[in-house]
C-alpha cells in the first residue's frame, strides 16, 4: 500500500498515497458500513475488503467521478453482499437452532446505530447515512445506490418519514405507560 509510487496513483485519488487514502476515508467508510449493517464486526470486514478491492481495481476507476463516491459505492455493494450472506446463514441457523443448544451472543462491540434504524431497508439506511453524515445530495446518493436521482430522493424521503413515524409511535407508547 505504502509502496506504491506517487505517479502510479490515478488522477482524482488523493495524492496522499494509499496509506493516506485509508487515513482520510477509513473512518467515514467504517461509520457508513456500521450504519448500513448495524454491526461493527461485519462493518470492519466489509471496509477491509472494500479497500482491498479499491487497491486492486484502481485501473477501472473513472477520474471524472468522485473518489469518495466510488469508494462508498463499493462499500455499499459489499454491505449488500454481507446482508445476503447473513440472511442465508440465519435461515440455515434457524433450522438447526432447536437441535443444538447455543450460548447467547454477547452482541456487537463498539458504537452501533439506533435500534429504530433496523425498521427500514438497507437501501434507505444507506441514503439516510449518506445524507446525514456525508451531506450528500440526491444526485450523489443516486451515484452510490446506482439509481436515478428521483429514486434516490424518494428513498431518502421514505426513510426520513418512516423513522419519524416510528419515533413518534415509541414516544406515544412510552407516555401511555
Amino acid at each position: 500500500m505504502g509502496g506504491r509510487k506517487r505517479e502510479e496513483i490515478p488522477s482524482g485519488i488523493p495524492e496522499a498515497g494509499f496509506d493516506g487514502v485509508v487515513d482520510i476515508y477509513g473512518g467515514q467508510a467504517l461509520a457508513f458500513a456500521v450504519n448500513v449493517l448495524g454491526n461493527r464486526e461485519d462493518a470492519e470486514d466489509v471496509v477491509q475488503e472494500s479497500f482491498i478491492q479499491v487497491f486492486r481495481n484502481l485501473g477501472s476507476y473513472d477520474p471524472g467521478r468522485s473518489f469518495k463516491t466510488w469508494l462508498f459505492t463499493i462499500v455499499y455493494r459489499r454491505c449488500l453482499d454481507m446482508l445476503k450472506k447473513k440472511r442465508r446463514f440465519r435461515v440455515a441457523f434457524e433450522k438447526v437452532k432447536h437441535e443444538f443448544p447455543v450460548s447467547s451472543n454477547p452482541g456487537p462491540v463498539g458504537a452501533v446505530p439506533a435500534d429504530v434504524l433496523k425498521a427500514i431497508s438497507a437501501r434507505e439506511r444507506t441514503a439516510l447515512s449518506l445524507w446525514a453524515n456525508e451531506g450528500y445530495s440526491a444526485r450523489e446518493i443516486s451515484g452510490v445506490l446506482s439509481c436515478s436521482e428521483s429514486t434516490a430522493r424518494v428513498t431518502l424521503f421514505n426513510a426520513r418519514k418512516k423513522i419519524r413515524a416510528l419515533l413518534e409511535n415509541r414516544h406515544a407508547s412510552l407516555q401511555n405507560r
Partner: protein
Amino acid sequence: MLRCKTVEFLFDALPIGVWRAFLTRRHIDACPACQKKILSLEEARSLLVGPMDPDEWTGLKLRLRSRTANNTADRATAGYGNPAKLWRWASSAAMLLVLAVAGFWLLQQAGKEVPVADRIRPPERFELDYIRVGGQPAGAYIYQPQGADIIIVWAEKAP
C-alpha cells in the same frame, strides 16, 4: 396547510418514483410544515454512528496495511499480474502447440508416397485382347506375384 394535505394525498395516490420525486423537490423539501413531519438532519445524526476518529479503528487500519502490503508483494513476485490469467495463456499456448504438431504429422502422412505395388493395378496398366499360338487363339493366364512389380503371362495352345 391545505396545500400540504393535497400534496400528501397526491404523493400517496400515485406511487410513481418520478412523480413522488417531483412533489418532494417542488414542495416537501421547501415546506417547513412538511419538514416537521419527517426526520430532521439533527435527529438523523443522533440516530446514526458518525465518522470515527482514527483511535476508534486502529485494529482495522493495521489489518488493512498488512493485507495491502501482502498484495503489493504478490504483484511484485508475480510480474504478470493475475495468476489465473497467466494459466489461461499458458494452457492456450500449449493447446495451440499440440494442434500444430498434430496437423504437421497428418500432413506428412498424407503426402507420403504410396508403394509401387499398390499403385500398379494390372487391369489399368496391362491389357490383352487375345493371344494367338500357331495362328490359333490360345488360352492365356496372367499372374502378378504379390508385392512384385513383374507380370507373368502364360499362354498355351488351345485344345
